């Protein structure tokens, strides 16, 4: 609690020239030293560096500082760092306030005088606020070592095996009657022609026989409650029966890996390809099953002379999906190879927009396809091919009309068999999973990572991880890598045994709570439960992200955001608007 004679140390960072170039750091420090309770104010080149942190720690010890203000970058960047400095000196880490004079000041302003004044105002606000800070203690919760994996494809099985091998029990839910997912529908894989069956069989057998894995086929997740370390999942075994008639099994788990995969684009949605109307227009998955049977034929049972492969069906298209499905280009090249080697008299035209050969071995594979005499024809994203039936005089069954970009000609391509490279899209039930596990989806329905670059498998819900093609289209190596990454993240948490929960969260003052439940609906993280007995709402601190929505929404003012109390925020505002104080000082300097 605030004490009248608490000593505050203010540290103004130059951030090299990032701050000092626009903000007069010395003047800010000088001004800060005039503020009440401030016993010292210093500047330093890089406050986040080791000497910078040590300086703060030593000042706390030697001068008996009670609270610290660091005027530097965004707290997103270095709040953790400076909290560490406070802990090092034996001070409660929440006795820190940062004034952002870089992102919100020096980087966005040009006028040195005005920027300096603004920095002073921000520091003044921080000083007022830090006086209201309370010493908070983080808490820790136990971690249940069992894991729930949703989806029995290559990602789900890989993650499950990885975690089960490490000695943890895994519940694996698969909604189909078999494991394997989409890869089970594929013949060979690009670019090395590994048999998809070989990739799967070993994994399926190991998954089914593993003593640490319980596989639930024909099953679905119906409820997930609790928080990281202590989730409770309800699994229903459907097996053809309606959901309401089956009894759910409840399992206790600590973490969840969502590996629900993708579904292919429905080609009949694009009318000018005639899928479903022209018998010899097929999708890539239909060709896969032909290849699995070992014969590529037209519906009439003839060997096609001309095969045309059309890329980006449903992908890279304003009407359907704007994203690239990533795997179709190499799969198309694989088809070209397979068709040509099965029947050298067959000519394959590959009708594409761009050849996305980004992966390992892909560019070489592309070159091999050229060597195999595949005819590559480039079309324009905005100008899609049209398929129609050929006339009686033509030596082919269909003609594909398109504007070819590399020659600049308007052409027609002969074809007896047309293969549509259908893209990937989010499963129709993905929103259900997203809702149950409390993760977000983007505009296309893909699950959103907590950081697209640095946190590719974590979600904004602690303890729920995502991997594979439910996140975005990707190929098998990337899917397996993500599955292993998710498993590694979960294993790291399990091996720690306990999980630290930030002390900053919302709290309900039950004496004031009227039980209106407005906050229950508002919470974007499903972190508020309703206690039916007492008729009061309760925040699950482990799930709370301290966004403050409930605090603002509560009509009774019963919810307090720890570390973001009304008094703290008001004090900060008061400090910032205490103009007279800083304006006078600025003139004097």
């Amino acid at each position, binding site marked *: 609690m605030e004490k009248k004679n608490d000593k505050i140390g203010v540290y103004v960072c130059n951030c090299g020239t990032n701050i000092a170039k626009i903000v007069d750091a010395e003047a800010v420090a000088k001004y800060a030293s005039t503020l009440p309770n401030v016993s010292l104010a210093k500047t330093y080149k890089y406050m986040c560096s080791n000497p910078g942190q040590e300086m703060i720690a030593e000042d706390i010890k030697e001068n008996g500082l009670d609270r610290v203000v660091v005027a530097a970058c965004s707290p997103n960047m270095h709040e953790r760092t400076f909290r560490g400095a406070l802990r090092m000196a034996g001070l409660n880490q929440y006795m820190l306030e940062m004034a952002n004079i870089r992102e919100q000041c020096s980087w966005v302003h040009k006028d040195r005088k005005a920027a300096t004044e603004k920095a002073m105002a921000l520091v003044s606000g921080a000083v007022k606020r830090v006086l209201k800070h309370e010493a908070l203690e983080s808490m820790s919760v136990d971690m249940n070592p069992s894991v729930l994996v949703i989806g029995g494809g290559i990602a789900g099985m890989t993650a499950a095996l990885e975690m089960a091998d490490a000695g943890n029990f895994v519940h694996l839910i698969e909604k189909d009657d078999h494991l394997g997912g989409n890869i089970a529908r594929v013949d060979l894989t690009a670019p090395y022609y590994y048999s998809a069956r070989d990739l799967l069989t070993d994994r399926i057998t190991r998954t089914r026989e593993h003593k640490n894995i319980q596989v639930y086929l024909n099953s679905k997740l119906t409820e997930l409650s609790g928080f990281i370390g202590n989730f409770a999942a309800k699994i229903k075994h459907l097996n053809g029966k309606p959901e309401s008639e089956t009894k759910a099994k409840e399992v206790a788990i600590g973490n969840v890996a969502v590996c629900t995969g993708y579904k292919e684009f429905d080609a009949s949605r694009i009318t000018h390809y005639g899928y479903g109307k022209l018998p010899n227009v097929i999708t890539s998955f239909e060709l896969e099953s032909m290849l699995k049977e070992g014969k590529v034929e037209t519906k009439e049972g003839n060997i096609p*002379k*001309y095969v045309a492969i059309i890329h980006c069906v449903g992908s890279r298209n304003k009407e359907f999906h704007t994203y690239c499905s990533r795997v179709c280009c190499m799969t198309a090249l694989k088809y070209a190879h397979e068709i040509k080697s099965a029947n050298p008299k067959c*000519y*394959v*035209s590959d009708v594409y927009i761009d*050849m996305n050969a980004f992966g390992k071995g892909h560019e070489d594979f*592309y*070159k091999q396809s*050229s*060597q195999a*005499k*595949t*005819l*590559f*024809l480039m079309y324009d994203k905005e100008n899609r091919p049209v398929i129609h039936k050929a006339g009686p005089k033509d030596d082919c069954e269909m*003609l594909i*009309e398109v504007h*070819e970009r*590399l*020659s600049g*000609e*308007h*052409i*027609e*391509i*002969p074809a007896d068999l047309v293969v549509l490279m259908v893209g990937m899209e989010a499963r129709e039930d993905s929103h259900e999973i997203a809702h149950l596990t409390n993760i977000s989806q983007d505009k296309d329905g893909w699950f959103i990572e907590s950081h697209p670059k640095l946190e590719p498998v974590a979600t904004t819900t602690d303890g729920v991880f995502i991997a594979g093609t439910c996140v975005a289209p990707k190929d098998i190596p990337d899917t397996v890598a993500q599955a292993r990454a998710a498993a590694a993240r979960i294993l790291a948490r399990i091996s720690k045994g306990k999980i630290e929960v930030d002390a900053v969260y919302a709290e309900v003052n039950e004496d004031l709570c009227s039980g209106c439940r407005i906050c229950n609906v508002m919470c974007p993280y499903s972190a508020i439960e309703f206690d039916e007995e007492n008729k009061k709402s309760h925040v699950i601190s482990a799930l709370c992200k301290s966004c403050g929505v409930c605090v603002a929404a509560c009509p009774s003012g019963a919810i307090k955001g720890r570390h973001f109390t009304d008094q703290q925020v008001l004090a900060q505002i008061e400090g910032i608007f205490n103009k007279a104080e800083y304006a006078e000082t600025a003139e004097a300097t």
Partner: protein
Amino acid sequence: MAIRVNPSYIDVLDKFGAEDVQLCYQCGDCSTVCSHADDIFKFPRKSMRQLQMGLEEKIETSLEPWLCYYCGQCSEQCPREADPGETMMSLRRWLISRYDITGIADKFFKSKTSEIITVSLIAVLAGVYLMFYGFSGGSLQVYDGEGAFLPSSFIHSFDLIVGGIMFLFLWIGALRMWYFTMVKGFSIPVPWWLYFKKLYEIPFQFLTQKRYAECENNGESKLYMPWLIHFGLAMGYTFMIVLIMVFVEPLQAGPEIRWSVHIFGYLATIGLLAGCIYFIRQRILKTKHVQYKKTHSTDWMFVILLIIIVVSGIVQHILHRTGFLEAANITYVIHMMAVVPWLLRMPFSKWAHLIYRPLAMYYAEIQREAVVRQQKLVDPLSITMK
């Protein structure tokens, strides 16, 4: 109207030597490095594309393949080893087969055996006929004058007939070439006087081979050998044809040497011999220049026939001047056995470029000016060409 793509055409061009064309992914490096490609004649990239897509009519009516002299820079630069230089060469072979109305060229390019059989047959027929003629009216011991085995007046007429047949087919081809490139494939109106204005291009390009000299010098030597050799060979060829068509009688007479005629004969022989040795050496060693890395069967036929002609010609000349008249007559028959198929084969082989290439340069200049005229009429500000 949409143009029909022909994915199977690639297999046809394979036989003409364009084996790697499907490797091309249209980056355009070849056109950038080419000294001759410009805004109007965009090759090799464009030609490669038309070939990949099997756009027969587009290639048939294009002049581009003739504007390439195969310096090989494009093939060296190609990031995908699609060998654009060799593709242009193959297209020239293919165009010759297209200009040829008889279908003989097509047969020769596609089948090595049919060419060997035809050439051998013509050689044997020519040999039998000449032997028959010689023994029926003359004596093997007499080389010239009264009772000669192969009188020079007879050889002259014989040469004229064989040469006439050759030129007939060559000019039919040239006429078809004009129709394809200037009528069928060129829609911009060409005023008649342009044909006269640009006429100088034919003798100029033929005699100087200036464009070949403009090809990028690989920096190997100051005198660009391929140009020099090609020039020597072309001139030797031309001199020799003029000599045997017009001056065969004074050339054959002897034993004294008439320097006014023979000096040209010797010069032409040196040119042909040097060219032959150079080409054989390059083709066997397959060194340095990419243009010799791949050799079509028809290329060998040319070199073999030429070396027989040159060697037998030299031997026969020496035998005649040293008084071995019997041996000289027999060598003469052998010489003629190579000369006849060599001349008759010309309109159906790569060596028809002797006519087609200067014509192509001429047509290209006409087209270039016609395009500029058109642009001036349509939009005077749009002219960006050199």
